[in-house]
């Protein structure tokens, strides 16, 4: 009898333990996921969330989505009040800052499956020199020159062959002679800064403008030379006037002249190809080659990612957050839904799915392929942090408006960057 009783007791305990485990497995977990983007990205991301919830009924994802306006500021407030969402999209330039400030969870410590990613791509995007993955790249991207092929062919312009920076002046003149209402380049201050200052400097020195140890790698003379190039772009009417472009901010697709097909090319990113194409779908587009200096130390142009996605360091459910990201990045179902809404996907598996399902945007793919040809390295870090970016953008704006001479702008930039270093080092 005592054996039976013991067995009964053991079985009861085992049953209770099993019930407890089952109950905890079914425990409802709610995660918040925030991102920015346009309607297409919102719709596709919501569809992935639905698919994930259907496969994981015990995990609910609360979406928080918006446009980019105010997104970073909102995150700052949420970090300060420790109310940030469990999972959130991160602007590439902010990734290193967030890592430095300790708000990102180490994804390498979770069960996330990294096997679909190229290890070097992961190392360069989201590890921030730590050797662990603190953020996941959402796609492959880089600076791009989106060319209105229809107009370029009409004028007789070819941007598919290698060329140097001076070539823009020759083409700009040709465009103005063809039609005084047309310009070679549509360039806004934000994207123009990345294109004409950061990339230029990477070609000149083979280094970012500021290294992560707060070393300023660019001299005042080098800035002056770069700013003089920008001055000429506007004075010689290669770019549309800065005062005309200013009201549209970085939303080049809203510029009526882009919609009317009055620009040969737009200075932007591979991730903006979709919206630019959608704004004027009646013409053909290609991704142009990028300008190169003959005496360059590096091609300057590089391929990195359009954004990251990370897990908040204070999340109560890192395992579930990683599980969602695993679904988001590593399932064919999610890849087919997302397509290229965050540029070309970052894994070969997702790219194959997109090709197979016919959701790979050909222009995005082409723009990414162009950016992959170059050997430049990302300057993500202090060079892309908000304050340094603002200093560079102000200089670009001053020179493009003709409000400051290249020499004065260079002197001011060096002074402000040194001041930034003194304040933060």
């Amino acid at each position, binding site marked *: 009898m005592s054996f039976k009783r013991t067995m009964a007791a053991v079985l009861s305990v085992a049953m209770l333990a099993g019930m407890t485990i089952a109950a905890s497995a079914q425990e409802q977990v709610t995660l918040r996921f925030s991102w920015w983007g346009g309607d297409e990205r919102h719709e596709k991301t919501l569809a992935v969330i639905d698919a994930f919830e259907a496969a994981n009924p015990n995990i609910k994802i609360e979406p928080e989505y918006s446009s980019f306006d105010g997104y*970073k*500021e909102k995150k700052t407030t949420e970090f300060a009040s420790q109310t940030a969402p469990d999972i959130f999209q991160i602007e590439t330039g902010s990734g290193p800052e967030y890592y430095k400030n300790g*708000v990102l969870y180490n994804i390498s410590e979770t069960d996330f499956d990294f096997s679909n990613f190229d290890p070097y791509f992961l190392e360069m995007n989201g590890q921030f020199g730590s050797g662990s993955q603190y953020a996941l790249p959402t796609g492959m991207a880089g600076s791009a020159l989106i060319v209105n092929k229809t107009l370029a062919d009409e004028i007789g312009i070819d941007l598919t062959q290698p060329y140097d920076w001076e070539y823009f002046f020759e083409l700009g003149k040709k465009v103005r002679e063809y039609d005084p209402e047309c310009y070679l380049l549509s360039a806004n201050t934000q994207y123009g800064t990345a294109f004409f200052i950061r990339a230029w400097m990477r070609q000149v020195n083979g280094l970012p403008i500021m290294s992560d140890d707060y070393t300023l790698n660019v001299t005042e003379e080098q800035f002056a030379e770069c700013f003089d190039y920008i001055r000429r772009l506007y004075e010689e009417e290669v770019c549309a006037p800065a005062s*005309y*472009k*200013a*009201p549209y901010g970085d939303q080049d697709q809203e510029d*009526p002249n882009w919609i009317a097909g009055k620009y040969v090319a737009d200075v932007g990113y591979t991730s903006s190809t979709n919206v630019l194409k959608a704004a004027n779908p009646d013409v053909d587009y290609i991704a142009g080659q990028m300008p190169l200096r003959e005496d360059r130390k590096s091609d300057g142009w590089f391929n990195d990612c359009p954004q990251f996605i990370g897990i908040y360091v204070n999340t109560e459910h890192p395992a579930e957050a990683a599980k969602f990201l695993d679904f988001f990045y590593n399932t064919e179902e999610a890849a087919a839904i997302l397509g290229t809404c965050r540029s070309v996907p970052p894994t070969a598996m997702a790219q194959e799915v997109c090709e197979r399902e016919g959701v790979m945007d050909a222009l995005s793919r082409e723009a990414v392929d162009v950016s992959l040809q170059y050997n430049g390295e990302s300057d993500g870090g202090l060079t892309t942090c908000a304050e340094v970016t603002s200093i560079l953008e102000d200089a670009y704006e*001053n020179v493009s408006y003709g409000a400051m001479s290249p020499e004065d702008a260079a002197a001011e930039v060096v002074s402000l960057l040194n001041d930034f270093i003194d304040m933060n080092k």
Partner: protein
Amino acid sequence: MKKLKISHNNMAYIYLLPWIIGLLMLQVYPFVKSFYYSLTDYNPLADPKFIGIANYVRLFTKDKEFGKSLAATIEYVLVTVPFKIIMSLVIAMLLNKGRKGIGALRTIYYLPSLFGGSIAVAVLWKVMFMDQGMINAFLNKIGIGTISFFGNPSTALPTLSSLEVWQFGSSMVMFLAALKQVPSSLYEAAEIDGASKVKSFFSITLPQISPIIFFCIIMQTVNALQNFTSAFVITQGGPLKSTYMLGLKLYNDGFLYMKMGYASATSWVIFGLVMIFTLVLFGTSRFWVFYGDED
């Protein structure tokens, strides 16, 4: 059962308690705390470090943006406040007549004020004044041609001011109430003495409503010094920092560059400006503000 007796005074405090708690938590505490933060190097993701008055020294001696920002803010105040006061007074005088449908007209003119500093109105303004907007369509029609209101540093600030001026309703209502209080006997006496309408306006109307003008100037000045929404939504402070007002600088320093201590110092400078403007206005008020109980 013994009834709990509460004195009138205590009862008043009980009723006031929610407001007092709100005042202490949402006004007094942040006010004091922001002063403390202004004396610190404070990244919101780390603990603040006390640095004394270094933020203020930096603002006034090293920060080139601060000078531009201060100039833009003062220019905005000097353009906005007089135009808004004049506009609201003129409309109030026009609406201070016993015409048919005057009530509906007063409501229509007051409506813009109800929208306040909303994002929607700022976006509307932006669309209206864009190169392809309604205003430029009109200017083109009358042969003036397109003006890049937000692309030109000399027109961007006045265009933002026009949005504030357009929302003149609250001042207008106060002027309307004040105009009704002016005794008609004064105008009758002036008419008998042969005073013209213009003379009556300057010698009777303005002195009689001067306390309300004074109040409106102070309130509008305080509002204008704190402007943020229109500069943030429409121009982001550009072009060339021409609309980079202190409210926007404070926001960028705090939330974009994560220098919350520095932003707090800017907020105290704005507070100082409000105080200076108010004190100057109070100082001059004895020369032009007339109260009924004075000799």
